[in-house]
């Protein structure tokens, strides 16, 4: 391979295989199509501005600080809502996972609430909390609660009875078993729930900002709509997708990192 990469042909082959292996081939094709289409006027530039125009708006929004301000305000909302929701969902899930009658009491109510898309409650939330931070926080909590709660309940209830017996023989109290057996054994489920929850909350937050907000990426898009700036809308869409994947990737990386327990390593 070392010999090959020295030649021009080998280099081209390496780039081609890198594109193929990382799965950027499709985005690349879309980008080329988008660029060519705009260049040769296959569609009106107002309906879809070309990548160069979008890129230029991206940098000018970055320069003016408008983009970063909106990104920061969306992300801060996510962080706040996600932490609040995680605390509640985890606590509720552990109580329900351990104390089953509680789950029986709660499950019809939760089942009902689970089917309500957070967005559907927006008018009521605005009525109660205004268009400020509180209504966004509630939206995020609603979106994240269920994936975290349901996954954690599952994690707690699937805990291997055999392992709990070991703890019991070794003189663990109930609280110690919970902390040292149930908790670590449900960690992969908790992290999966958080990852799902994060995705949901990102999407619902943007949607909420599109309806009523004075900052955030959703607001930026809404504002651009009123100013007839499709290039800014495209910047918003791309940034939302990009940030969403970065967040998801970080959590899935953390999940793999902290819960592989040597499964990817050599068996001795």
């Amino acid at each position: 391979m070392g010999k090959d990469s020295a030649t021009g042909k080998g280099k081209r082959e390496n780039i081609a295989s890198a594109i193929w292996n990382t799965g950027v081939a499709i985005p690349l094709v879309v980008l080329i199509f988008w660029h060519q289409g705009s260049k040769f006027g296959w569609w009106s530039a107002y309906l879809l501005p070309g990548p160069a125009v979008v890129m230029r708006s991206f940098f000018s929004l970055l320069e003016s600080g408008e983009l970063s301000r909106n990104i920061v305000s969306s992300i801060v909302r996510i962080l706040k809502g996600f932490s609040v929701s995680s605390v509640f969902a985890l606590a509720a899930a552990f109580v329900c996972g351990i104390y089953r009658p509680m789950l029986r009491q709660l499950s019809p109510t939760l089942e009902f609430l689970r089917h309500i898309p957070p967005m559907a409650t927006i008018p009521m939330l605005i009525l109660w909390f205004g268009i400020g931070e509180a209504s966004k926080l509630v939206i995020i909590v609603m979106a994240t609660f269920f994936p975290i709660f349901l996954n954690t309940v599952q994690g707690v209830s699937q805990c291997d009875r055999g392992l709990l017996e070991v703890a019991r023989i070794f003189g663990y109290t109930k609280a110690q078993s919970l902390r040292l057996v149930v908790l670590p054994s449900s960690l992969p489920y908790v992290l999966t729930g958080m990852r799902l929850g994060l995705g949901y909350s990102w999407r619902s937050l943007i949607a909420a900002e599109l309806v009523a907000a004075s900052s955030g990426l959703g607001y930026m898009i809404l504002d651009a709509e009123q100013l007839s700036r499709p290039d800014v809308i495209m910047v918003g869409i791309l940034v939302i997708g990009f940030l969403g994947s970065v967040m998801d990737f970080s959590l899935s990386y953390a999940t793999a990192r902290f819960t592989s327990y040597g499964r990817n390593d050599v068996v001795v």
Partner: protein
Amino acid sequence: MSWFDAVDIRKEYPLGDGVKVALDGFSLSAPRGDFVSIIGRSGSGKTTFLRIVAGLLEKTSGEIRYGGGVPPRIGMVFQEPRLMPWLTVEKNVLFAHLSRNRKAIPYDMAKNLLEMLGLSLYKDAYPSQLSGGMAQRVALGRALCREPELILMDEPFGSLDYFTRRSLQEEILRLYMRDKKTIFLVTHDVDEAVALSRRVVVLDQGRVSREIDIDLEYPRKRTNPAFAATVEMILSYITG
């Protein structure tokens, strides 16, 4: 009264409309340092007895008494290793102590045990990286790390291949010769019972049908005619 006395133990499980009797007047006494193998067909109540001693099951009636008055510290090895997948080999061995103060965790003892069981190299490995035999060694180390006065083993070699089983049997014997801890071993391998234990108890339908003292010198040679004769005799009791 001996060090360990199980008197007239009865255990019923609900089964459909009726009850299934797993133990029916089971009694067993053992002095400290005894090595008792409990053998019998599946469903004869072997495991039920062990689980009652371990405190994992409630008995329906009967009594378990200890000469010392207080129940001894128990270490148990199951048929499956039952290791915590999120803990390294070392932490798994130390499992009995993880609920205690960080400073009280006996790392030295774990180090010695790992060395003795030939696991030093795998101290930082995770259970998913171990073979079945290795994992069972770790489970044994974990039981020993509690410094148990009574060791319960529920078919600990049942799922291992022949070679691994033999080497672990030797390991157990070596430990027994060294520490003379009391061991109750549930097995359905007559050969294993005769090779390891001082006494073999044959269980049939929830009660002891025979108790055989094995008066052979340790380590026992399977080629010894007396060994083979003992195995044959016990087999005939079981298959009756």
